[in-house]
């Protein structure tokens, strides 16, 4: 597989790669389903939500193989978290796929010794950092391209930056610590040497030393840029020819006064209707059979 740096890692057979892929896919997928359903606690702008169990693919990336762990996790998220729940988001998934895959892959590459806690801590924050950063950039981009004359609207650019920046920091500190750093530090040393026999393989040789420079090869950097370009392109397809519907500008002036309330209203109506539907169903049921 990946040349250069990867040859130094201990070799895996195709079947073992498939095992890692399946493991990462099913476990991250299941965790994703669970986190999708856990409600979030919001105290003002501070969100306490379970973003994702990023530690799961990270474990496999560190213990086995970053590429297959990352691919498996991305597939797992799309399959379990979206497809099976009927929430497949179409193109939006591509963006998540690339951000997340890249994050896990790079973080996994950084760890050369699974028993070194410092490396693990760095990997944990790098993983969530890359993912969140790319996500933030894309989100800002969305507003930028979704709103005409973005910069001309007073207050909007600042507020978007503030919100996204805050969300980024929040995710880094809360999710990064609770769901990346702590579980990684706790689980990697425990699993190392223990999970491998169950899969019928030898533990990865922690002594295969190489400097960070070995891992951050030109190839990796190029790949990163390439991936990022694809991510950008997928999202900002519009940018290249934003005026292709050339009569659009006529309508700027015509934007209705209460327009925001229409869309807010539609969303609210859906929300309320769904709530009523859900509640009316629930009240028809008995309670108390499970714990």
């Amino acid at each position, binding site marked *: 597989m990946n040349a250069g740096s990867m040859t130094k890692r201990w070799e895996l057979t195709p079947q073992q790669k498939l095992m890692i892929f399946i493991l990462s896919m099913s476990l991250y997928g299941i965790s994703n389903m669970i986190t999708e359903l856990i409600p979030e606690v919001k105290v003002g702008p501070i969100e306490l939500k379970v973003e994702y169990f990023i530690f799961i693919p990270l474990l496999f990336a560190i213990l086995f193989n970053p590429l297959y762990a990352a691919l498996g996790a991305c597939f797992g998220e799309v399959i379990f978290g979206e497809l*099976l729940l*009927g929430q497949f988001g179409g193109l939006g998934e591509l963006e998540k796929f690339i951000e997340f895959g890249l994050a896990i892959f790079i973080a996994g590459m950084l760890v050369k010794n699974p028993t070194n806690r410092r490396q693990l801590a760095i990997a944990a924050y790098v993983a969530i950092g890359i993912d969140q950063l790319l996500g933030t950039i894309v989100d800002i981009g969305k507003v930028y391209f979704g709103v005409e004359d973005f910069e001309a609207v007073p207050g909007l650019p600042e507020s978007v930056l503030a919100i996204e920046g805050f969300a980024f920091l929040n995710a880094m500190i809360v999710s990064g610590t609770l769901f990346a750093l702590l579980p990684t530090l706790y689980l990697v040393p425990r699993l190392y040497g223990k999970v491998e026999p169950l899969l019928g393989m030898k533990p990865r040789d922690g002594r295969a030393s190489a400097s960070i420079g070995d891992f951050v090869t030109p190839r990796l950097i190029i790949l990163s840029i390439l991936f990022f370009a694809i991510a950008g392109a997928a999202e900002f397809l519009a940018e290249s020819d934003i005026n292709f519907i050339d009569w659009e500008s006529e309508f700027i002036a015509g934007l209705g006064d209460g327009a925001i309330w*229409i869309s807010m209203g539609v*969303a609210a109506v859906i929300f309320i209707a769904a709530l009523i539907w859900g509640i009316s169903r629930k009240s028809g049921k008995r309670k108390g059979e499970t714990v």
Partner: protein
Amino acid sequence: MELAEPTHKTTIWEKLSVERIKIELLRTAYGQSMTFLSRFDPRMLIGWYSFFAIAPWFIHNKTVLIGMLLAIAILTYTSKPSVLVLIVLAFGLVTDTAYMLIVALAFGGGFSAALALSTLTLKLLVIALASIAVFSSMDPEKLSDALLSLGMPAQFSFGVAYGYRMLPILIEEYNNLLYSYRLRGRAPLRKGFLGWRALVYMGKISVLAFYPLILNTAKRTRTTVEALEVKGFTYAVKDPRVKRIKLAYLKVLPRDYAFIIVSAIYVAFLFWLGSQFTL
């Protein structure tokens, strides 16, 4: 038969019980039924969806967007999406927009900001509903086959089928592992402010339960991969013939063309309407 209301108070465990979540998940995942859209060729639907997922980004005319929204909302209704999906969508949209609005006001924005954001919300709504309408009613296996025929690697469609197979088992196992922690562990005696101690305990064991789950799944995976070898999967991935045979059932029928044409006419009409009456 109606049963008496139990006397005990429902605890946080019951509201969030994995068992309940399991039922909810299984219902969404396995409860597919025939809907209007599910009768069409999945590849055609993906194409159809792609238009509605991309086009709104370039359209700033609210008449057109609202017209699209109406049609897609109707289609979404026919595809009977789960309440859960709708709640998640609506909640996200409402809070995000409201939140952004408040912050924008704080930065001295005002009505113009609100106005600009309304278009964005409308666009996002069209895109999100389009994906719900198409994908929530589509059998995941059919979708994965469609993606396979559009060049997605075979591992993906295997993953979908495997996910279908394993989902209930993994959830059950996770549930039992959580029970193991509960039956042998000790929940905090005091609930704490707003039950935060209970919440922390619950959060902690739901993360911890992944530790044995990883080990169990690892053991399970070994046999699975052996079986895949025996069943020839590892070879089939590289064989284009297998893909052709597997996808032979996907056919674009006249009704697919009809659907595309009707959609095209509708969209054209919307653009005309948009040029006449602008919101």
